[in-house]
């Protein structure tokens, strides 16, 4: 089984490959290839490969690029942004790519930037990823020295600057338009769309924002072609996927597997099943803002379509596992507290609604739950549904809540009836 994304990452905890070793392993080959062809050819390859964004939303990468104005009259400068603001609770996949193979990200960024003819690229990195910052800085410096970056890359006439921007911490920065505002030195509030960033993004110029894992796939697509990429996958969405599991499983961790691997295989084979003494009650398949799935969904394939059919989302592909000795109401309270705290306050349903939800859940956990609380929570899931807010933070926050109300209804009722949390 091929593992293009992680093949260079040392499993013994050693540092990442430096440039010379990375080149000997075939590194930067895709840049040479890309520079010898047209930007449109690269976009076409990526579209044919059916690469979908790995940050959570799963938008088609090739289609996203196709909205960028091209040609002589296109506004300049154009920007490519690598979203390395990994802050979705339960998600730790981009950390591995950033720390383990920083040159792969830079190579992918050059390919993407060339395809949209970007002039400037930023890596937007969360502040807590201090080791990644160190390794990325070194890799960027190395890439400049060998003329993979800067003016007239490898004599092609194409120029690209890459800067590392280290954030100061806020979940909203990972939202596409919040990230633009953060980079402009503002509060990371979302922007209304349209205009879409592809046309009017950073400082009003055409901008593409891509997740780290998405960008890391690009060198391999350019080198091996769309058919190869399609064949890596078990399903219609191309490629491999970094899957993870955390919670009370025997071996929490991260694995690069074919896209469409079943939840059962990830949980039982790779994560080693549940720890002794606890049983599975449910899981969030792709981070905090995805709906719960339960034991009946173990054979669901972890790809964009199948997880959606099961009533949730692939999200980031890193699952959070709930066991039978952990309180589901407490878990949802923890999630809603996070979302309420990280809400930027820009639109009312979110700042008001999430705080209400958080307070009701806290009251239940502290034995102060009341008749009517469940109806109020149900109302919030509708009040904060997609379309009522500027960005996806609040709708995402409602996903674990609405599904918990469905699957763990009896637990909520018990909290209210007994005026206590049975697990505390």
């Amino acid at each position: 089984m091929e593992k293009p994304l992680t093949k260079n990452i040392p499993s013994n905890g050693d540092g990442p490959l430096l440039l010379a070793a990375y080149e000997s392993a075939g590194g930067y080959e895709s840049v040479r290839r890309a520079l010898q062809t047209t930007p449109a050819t690269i976009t076409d390859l990526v579209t044919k490969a059916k690469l979908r964004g790995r940050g959570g939303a799963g938008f088609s990468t090739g289609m996203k690029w196709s909205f960028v104005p091209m040609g002589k009259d296109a506004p300049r400068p154009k920007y490519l942004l690598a979203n390395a603001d990994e802050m979705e609770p339960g998600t730790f996949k981009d950390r591995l790519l950033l720390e383990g193979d920083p040159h792969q990200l830079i190579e992918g960024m050059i390919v993407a930037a060339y395809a949209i003819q970007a002039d400037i690229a930023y890596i937007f990195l969360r502040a807590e990823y201090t080791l990644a910052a160190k390794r990325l800085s070194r890799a960027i410096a190395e890439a400049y020295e060998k003329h993979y970056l800067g003016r007239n890359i490898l004599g092609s006439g194409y120029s690209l600057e890459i800067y590392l921007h280290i954030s100061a911490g806020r979940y909203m920065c990972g939202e596409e338009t919040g990230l633009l505002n953060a980079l402009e030195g503002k509060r990371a509030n979302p922007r209304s769309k349209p205009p879409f960033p592809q046309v009017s993004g950073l400082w009003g110029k055409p901008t593409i924002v891509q997740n780290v894992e998405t960008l890391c796939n690009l060198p391999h697509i350019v080198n091996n072609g769309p058919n190869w990429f399609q064949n890596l996958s078990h399903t219609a969405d191309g490629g491999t996927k970094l899957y993870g599991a955390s919670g009370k499983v025997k071996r929490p961790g991260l694995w690069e597997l074919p896209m469409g691997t079943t939840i059962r295989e990830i949980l039982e084979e790779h994560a080693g099943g549940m720890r002794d003494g606890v049983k599975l009650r449910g899981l969030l398949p792709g981070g905090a803002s995805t709906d719960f799935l339960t034991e009946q969904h173990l054979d669901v394939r972890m790809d964009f379509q199948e997880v959606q059919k099961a009533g949730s989302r692939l999200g980031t592909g890193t699952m959070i596992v709930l066991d039978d000795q952990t309180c589901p109401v407490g878990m949802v309270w923890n999630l809603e507290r996070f979302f309420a705290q990280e809400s930027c306050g820009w639109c009312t349903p979110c700042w008001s609604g999430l705080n209400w939800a958080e307070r009701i859940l806290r009251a239940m956990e502290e034995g102060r739950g009341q008749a009517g609380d469940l109806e109020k929570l149900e109302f919030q899931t509708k009040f904060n549904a997609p379309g009522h807010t500027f960005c996806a933070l609040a709708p995402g926050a409602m996903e674990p809540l609405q599904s918990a109300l469905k699957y763990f209804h009896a637990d909520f009722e018990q909290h209210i009836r007994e005026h206590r949390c049975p697990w505390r």
Partner: protein
Amino acid sequence: MLTVEERQEIEAEFSRYPNKRAVSIDALKIIQRHRGWVSDESLRDLGKLLEMTPDELDGVATFYNLVFRKPVGRHVVLVCDSVSCWIMGCESLCKRLAMQLGVSLGGTTSDGRFTVLPIVCLGACDHAPTLMVDNDLHGDVQPEKLDELLERYK
């Protein structure tokens, strides 16, 4: 007054962005690196350099979790309280930490050695529960071994 060194570091950032305002977050962090936190006076001085009002700058400073507008201890302990760490027992870790240091979350020890703050998911969920001390990530933290861990930070 900003020191010459702070000023130079901030001005070095100007080349990476098309305007001064965009440097605000980097600049706040530069000041914090030198002084531990960002005072009202620092905001005023920085505002002049970036051509922003102190209010505008404070709006930015207070938005971000890791810009400190109050003094902090010599070492900042960030304890993850997000979902995977919660499942793996961060509540008891926090209690232990509070007991050991004699401060609650948000507080600074009386000797000025540690400030303890909650933090959102640190992206190391396979090693929950996690915390950071300054720039160092610590995973699989066992409450009974906190003593040993904190000993390294004087």
